């Protein structure tokens, strides 16, 4: 198992998947920020004052981290940011899912995720992605540490 996790091709595949997913996810948000801001608002999760800043910054954070994680530049930083973003997405989706089960007034509307099974699917996808990003993050720290030791030994 450890062999697979440290295999450079496997790690590159994980980075490629994460990068492509994040770049792809950012494009729609970049194109329609107002709708993205609405979608965040509908999650009723973030304080209102931060919603638009979040809607302005997150798509660029996603696209930049997506590019960096594929190219391997700032790998530790970009994989950590991706892990943190996924962590927040999972919390936001989970609370939407739990609250969604209690709907009795029809007051709750999620524009991007239209029903409960969609939310559940998104949560599962994000959990798989966060596992991948944690692996990339840990391995990037380990390989840096090894490189540094090698440099010291030289």
């Amino acid at each position, binding site marked *: 198992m450890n062999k697979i996790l440290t295999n450079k091709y496997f790690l590159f595949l994980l980075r490629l998947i994460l990068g492509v997913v994040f770049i792809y996810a950012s494009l729609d948000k970049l194109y329609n920020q107002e709708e993205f801001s609405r979608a965040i608002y509908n999650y009723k999760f973030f304080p209102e004052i931060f919603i638009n800043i979040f809607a302005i910054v997150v798509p660029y954070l996603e696209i930049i981290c997506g590019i960096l994680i594929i190219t391997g530049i700032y790998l530790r930083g970009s994989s950590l940011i991706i892990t943190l973003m996924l962590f927040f997405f999972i919390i936001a989706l989970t609370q939407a899912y739990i609250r969604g089960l209690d709907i009795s007034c029809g007051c709750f509307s999620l524009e991007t995720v*239209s029903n409960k099974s969609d939310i559940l699917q998104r949560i599962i996808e994000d959990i798989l992605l966060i596992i991948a990003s944690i692996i990339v993050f840990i391995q990037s720290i380990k390989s840096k540490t090894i490189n540094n030791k090698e440099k010291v030994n030289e």
Partner: protein
Amino acid sequence: MNQRNKILKEVLIITLVSLIIGLIVNSVNPKGIPLVRDDSDRFKIDSASVQGSENKQVEKVKTKEGFVKPQNIPVETAKKLFDENVIFIDGREDFEFKEGHIKGAINIPYKEFYPKSPEEKQKMLGDIGKEKTIVSYCGGDDCEISIDNAYEMAKIGYDDVKIYIGGYREWNELGYPVNK
């Protein structure tokens, strides 16, 4: 510099660059959004609407996207329009609609309506003419799908959409006509 500081530095640089690019692009983008979201007038009753159905003469406000902005109305106006046989659209889900709704209202669940294409939306609204007055409502004043539904209708060209903010709860409490 130890590893933790280096990671922190990378995170800060990436975040700062994203923030700067985001703010610059947003400020020059014609579709840019304000830095702080302002929803304070979302539930506010439009004072011009209080006169009732005569407000057809009230100047229609267009949004920057180019559609006519739906107007929030109080219960008095809603009742007047109801008495004039104006179409009421209930945005709640089917099962909630069946539990009770404003008499004669049509059920267009927002969840089904929103993802559809403009043509399909029009199909859901049937033969309701674009010039017709429509009153959109939902559960009550803490409920937003009346607003969301109204904007979806306005976007496909309905230019006289009202939002009855008080919703079914207020209507029912006042003893106005309902179907149960």
